[in-house]
């Protein structure tokens, strides 16, 4: 019997009763009978080989005996035997003997046991299918599962039982209210309110939940991607139409206080090296949005916290420094906690303020109590809503952050500096419109608020703030100017034509009032596109500073706007009461006026191609108004994207995605760990034969990017190289000296002192000019300016963790070096005019010395085919690869040779050991305790196809030297071939660039983790 057959048989017999045990006396007897059964020749045949060898087997095979009739006369069997013998004369067949006699009592006993087993087998259902499913097809009837009476009568009882069981099971899941009651508005609201206690819901949550795959991330429920197949459609929307995203989960921190105090505090957290800071003139005036990288105070370039964008509120009276300024810092929720703590520390804001924000939360908690009481009432009776009588307060929808603890403070004041920090998370909505049609959608969906004129019903309207504003002629004229600028936007075909980060404040009317009957597509209106002086002015200079003013900065007004929103129900009722159905609804002074802020988001700013791709507008709204704006945007033809579309957007824009592309900030590290975990789980779910063996492929870390190992390896690699060449180079001694000096530095006290020094040097970057850059005297002039504070940093750098290089000057230098400079003219043009250095060994060495463990953000575009995926390895091409490429333009790249799986044997051994133990355990139950303890104490379970234990030297593990890893990569529809973004080791990059011929400088190889094929691609650093 073959193994497979045996298994099949065992499977068949699995559900047979096993409690039938026969006394040993019967074994021989039964075996004989078995063979005698001529009616089942096949089975008898199958069993034959075992007869002579193992008796034990037959006890297992007991079910066969059940097939026999109880009446088993020796005479008949004899006949059968003869018959069979004639049919097949096996050697065993003759060796067995027919029993001479049968003891009646034992025989009857055994038969009785068999009968009972048989009965049990009949009554007990073997499979886990329902009764009606076991019926043959011709006996099945429609709605059998629903109506028991459609089954044959004999099965009705069982089916009844099953149905009851099913109902019972269902009952556990269902709520204890009927469907209708659950759908009832108030109950639904209560339920929704309860469900947003744990994870914050955006205001568009219900809308998203119906159309998106939702994920719980960073304490929010967010739409990940549409359930519809829409990858390409969303891309098209970004490039040609308009993609809408709800970014309300972004957190806003508000800083209030004197300008110089805020600037002084925040300047410790950022560096001018990475770009403009909070103090940039155009941002400070409130004209533009700025973006900045935040670091732990005075720790630049290490201990990165995260990227943020910020907007200052424009000054009402320019030049008045005593005035209190307002600053909003917008950041991703993953990095919020760290940054908030650091800002609080920097501003010395320690005293919490009890704010009035708590009130709505208290309200909801009282409702919650009300809600929890409900189940206590008697079930079965019609429950009356308790709130009807005594509690007249209507149940309110949770607006804003549902998870907020009312007792926790959300704003802090500093007694020393007077800065107030408040956490405005979920106090505002932020919608992002991407794409060229966002202008027309905005201008069609939003109508600027009408100026209030009639004074007679001023008392009645709830929008007092607007009436008051309208009394002031100055603010009316400002409103008119804002309106004029906003109207101009409709005539501009792409948001990329407007200065980056332009801010426009606006007060608009209720967008629900002029909602179109049907979903339509807003198209840009050619009539509006007149090339006049005003448009020119807007394009050149952006929105004037005064027009950035918006009432959204004022908390009280926002609150009143949120509270006085007409509900959808009321609005629809009013609409239905119109005399002419479908005509324009005029609410007059009762119409809400909503202050909003529009912020232009620059698209792709860096690089050469696709400039301005993915630019758009962000709309900031007061909370509670999310859906009221969301639907009108969609009705004008915006397509909605989720988190995945946001990732695609940032990838095609070649900008780092938060938090995945910040490996040096805590949120990024956490993200990488989580990603590795989920990928590993996913990998383990597949059978070993159906998943790539990464050990054989030579992929050491397929699920994570070991940045630490990479940078360390490169550091030691270059050091070793240099030591070998130290004798030949003239200034080798000095560098060597420094090298040797470095490792003895890291003592705890000293590092502390050093960090202080670094702090001062960051504050005053011009101070430490007397750095020990002695080895590169020849270029000291440019060098000193390039990184004045690096000299002291580098001592600390040697013993500290990795960081990402974000100094713009250095990046510019690198990007100039990365490109191929085959044409002499180009190089000549570049070199003298811009003060760029030539790529020389010395220049590289000095940078390497300063930043031994730095990573650089690079973008890679594949030369030919191939689409990289995350965790793809970036490798240095060997000389022969480049040679081959230069000879054959169609050469697609070398292949990695197969590695041997070192762990396979170990795994096999482990498996065998386990098996052995199992067998032992089965044999003697006493040793069970020992056996169970053994594998636990041994090494952790190895997974076939994954590298286990400490990583080897990652750089030299494969045939091509590893340079870095890709973090985002895919086929890019924007450029039409594969594109990737990732980090490479700075040391490695410089080493590679300096050794490559100038014509082929910047070529690297990419290899996905599950492939052996390397593919050529070009490195670019875009600044």
């Amino acid at each position, binding site marked *: 019997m073959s193994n497979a057959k045996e298994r099949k048989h065992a499977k068949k017999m699995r559900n047979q009763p096993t409690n039938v045990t026969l006394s040993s006396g019967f074994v021989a007897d039964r075996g004989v009978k078995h063979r005698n059964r001529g009616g089942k020749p096949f089975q008898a045949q199958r069993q034959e080989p075992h007869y002579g060898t193992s008796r034990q087997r037959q006890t297992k095979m007991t079910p066969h005996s059940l097939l026999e009739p109880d009446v088993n006369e020796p005479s008949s069997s004899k006949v059968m035997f003869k018959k069979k013998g004639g049919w097949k004369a096996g050697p065993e067949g003759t060796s067995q003997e027919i029993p001479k006699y049968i003891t009646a009592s034992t025989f009857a006993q055994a038969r009785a046991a068999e009968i009972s087993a048989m009965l049990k087998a009949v009554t007990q259902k073997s499979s886990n299918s329902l009764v009606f499913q076991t019926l043959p097809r011709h006996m099945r009837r429609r709605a059998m599962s629903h109506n028991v009476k459609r089954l044959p009568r004999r099965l009705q009882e069982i089916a009844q039982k099953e149905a009851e069981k099913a109902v019972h099971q269902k009952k556990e899941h269902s709520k204890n209210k009927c469907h209708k009651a659950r759908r009832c508005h108030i109950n639904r609201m209560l339920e929704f309110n309860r469900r947003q206690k744990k994870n914050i819901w955006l205001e568009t949550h219900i809308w998203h939940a119906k159309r998106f795959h939702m994920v719980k991330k960073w304490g929010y429920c967010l739409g990940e991607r549409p359930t519809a197949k829409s990858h390409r459609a969303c891309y098209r929307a970004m490039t040609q139409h308009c993609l809408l995203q709800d970014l309300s989960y972004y957190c806003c921190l508000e800083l209030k206080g004197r300008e110089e105090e805020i600037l002084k505090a925040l300047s410790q957290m950022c560096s001018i090296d990475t770009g403009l800071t909070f103090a940039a003139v155009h941002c400070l005036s409130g004209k533009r949005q700025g973006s900045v990288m935040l670091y732990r105070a005075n720790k630049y370039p290490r201990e990165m916290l995260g990227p943020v964008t910020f907007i200052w509120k424009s000054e009402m009276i320019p030049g008045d420094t005593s005035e209190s300024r307002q600053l909003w810092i917008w950041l991703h929720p993953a990095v919020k906690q760290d940054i908030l703590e650091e800002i609080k520390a920097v501003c010395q804001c320690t005293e919490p303020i009890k704010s009035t924000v708590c009130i709505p939360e208290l309200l909801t908690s009282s409702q919650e109590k009300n809600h929890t009481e409900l189940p206590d009432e008697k079930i079965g009776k019609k429950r009356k809503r308790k709130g009807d009588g005594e509690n007249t307060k209507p149940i309110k929808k949770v607006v804003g952050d549902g998870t907020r603890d009312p007792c926790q403070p959300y704003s802090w004041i500093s007694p020393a500096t007077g800065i107030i920090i408040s956490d405005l998370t979920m106090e505002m909505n932020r919608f992002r419109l991407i794409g060229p049609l966002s202008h027309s959608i905005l201008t069609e969906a939003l109508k600027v608020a009408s100026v209030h004129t009639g004074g007679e019903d001023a008392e009645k309207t709830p929008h007092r703030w607007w009436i008051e504003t309208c009394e002031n002629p100055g603010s009316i004229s400002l409103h008119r100017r804002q309106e004029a600028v906003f109207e101009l936007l409709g005539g501009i*075909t*792409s948001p990329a034509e407007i200065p980056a980060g332009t801010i426009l404040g606006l007060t608009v009317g209720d967008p629900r009032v002029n909602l179109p009957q049907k979903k339509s597509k807003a*198209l840009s209106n050619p009539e509006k596109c007149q090339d006049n002086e005003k*448009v020119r002015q807007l394009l*050149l200079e952006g929105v004037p500073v005064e027009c950035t003013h918006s009432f959204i900065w004022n908390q009280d007004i926002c609150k009143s706007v949120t509270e006085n929103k007409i509900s959808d129900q009321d609005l629809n009722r009013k609409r239905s009461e119109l005399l002419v159905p479908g005509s324009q609804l005029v609410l007059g002074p009762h119409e809400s006026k909503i202050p909003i802020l529009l912020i232009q988001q620059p698209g792709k700013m860096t690089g050469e*191609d696709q*400039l*301005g791709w993915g630019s758009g507008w962000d709309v900031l709204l007061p909370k509670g108004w999310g859906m009221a704006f969301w639907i009108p945007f969609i009705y004008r033809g915006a397509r909605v994207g989720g988190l995945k579309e946001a990732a695609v957007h940032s990838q095609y824009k070649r900008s780092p995605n938060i938090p995945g592309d910040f490996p040096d900030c805590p949120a990024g590290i956490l993200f990488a760990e989580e990603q590795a975990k989920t990928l590993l789980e996913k990998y383990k779910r597949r059978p070993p034969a159906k998943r790539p063996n990464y050990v054989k492929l030579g992929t050491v870390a397929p699920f994570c990017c070991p940045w630490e190992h990479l940078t360390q390896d490169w550091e030691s690699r270059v050091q070793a190289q240099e030591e070998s060449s130290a004798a030949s180079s003239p200034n080798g001694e000095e560098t060597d000296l420094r090298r040797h000096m470095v490792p003895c530095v890291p003592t705890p006290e000293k590092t502390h002192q050093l960090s202080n020094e670094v702090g001062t040097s960051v504050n005053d970057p011009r101070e430490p000019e007397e750095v020990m850059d002695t080895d590169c005297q020849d270029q000291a002039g440019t060098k000193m300016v390039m990184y004045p504070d690096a000299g002291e940093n580098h001592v600390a750098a040697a013993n500290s963790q990795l960081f990402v290089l974000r100094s713009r000057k250095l990046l510019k230098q690198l990007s100039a070096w990365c490109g191929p400079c085959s044409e002499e003219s180009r190089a000549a043009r570049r070199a003298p005019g811009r003060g760029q250095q030539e790529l020389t060994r010395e220049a590289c060495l000095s940078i390497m010395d300063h930043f031994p463990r730095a990573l650089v953000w690079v973008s890679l575009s594949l030369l030919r085919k191939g689409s990289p995926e995350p965790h793809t390895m970036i490798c240095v091409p060997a000389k022969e690869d480049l040679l081959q490429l230069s000879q054959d333009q169609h050469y697609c790249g070398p292949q990695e040779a197969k590695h041997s799986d070192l762990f396979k044997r170990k795994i096999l051994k482990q498996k065998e050991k386990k098996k052995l133990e199992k067998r032992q355990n089965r044999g003697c139950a006493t040793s069970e305790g020992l056996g169970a303890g053994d594998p636990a104490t041994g090494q952790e379970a190895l997974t076939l196809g994954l590298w286990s234990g400490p990583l080897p030297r990652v750089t030299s593990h494969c045939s091509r030297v590893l340079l870095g890893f890709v973090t985002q990569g895919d086929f890019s529809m924007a450029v039409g071939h594969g594109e990737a973004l990732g980090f490479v080791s700075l040391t490695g990059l410089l080493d590679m660039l300096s050794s490559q011929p100038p014509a082929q400088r910047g070529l690297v190889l990419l290899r996905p983790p599950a492939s052996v094929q390397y593919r050529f691609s070009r490195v670019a650093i875009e600044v």
Partner: protein
Amino acid sequence: MAENREPRGVVEAELDPVEYTLRKRLPHRLPRRPNDIYVNMKTDFKAQLARCQKLLDGGTRGQNACTEIYIHGLGLAINRAINIALQLQAGSFGSLQVAANTSTVELVDELEPETDTREPLTRIRNNSAIHIRVFRVTPK
């Protein structure tokens, strides 16, 4: 116009790569009609030519055929735009005519400061453009 010219001179005087980064902005363009074709240097020439031909020919039975198309080229792409138009005309056996217009397009360059104390500047640069109308004539 004059007031725009004036700061330009100042900018050029103090322009320094250490202090400013040049960022080119997209050219201001009018909304696209279906029969507008903007020629670029990145797309394959043949593909662009085929696109124009398709617009003129319409579907299989000549439905939705445009009687005229406009080919726009800016800067370096002027050559290519002319080339496309002439190729179209040559391949039409005299049924297509071309009429060209030239214009000047103002391009905006943004100068992003590298230091906090400087304002971002904008420069206006002129570039030539061509707009070729390719239209069908009934052959006599």
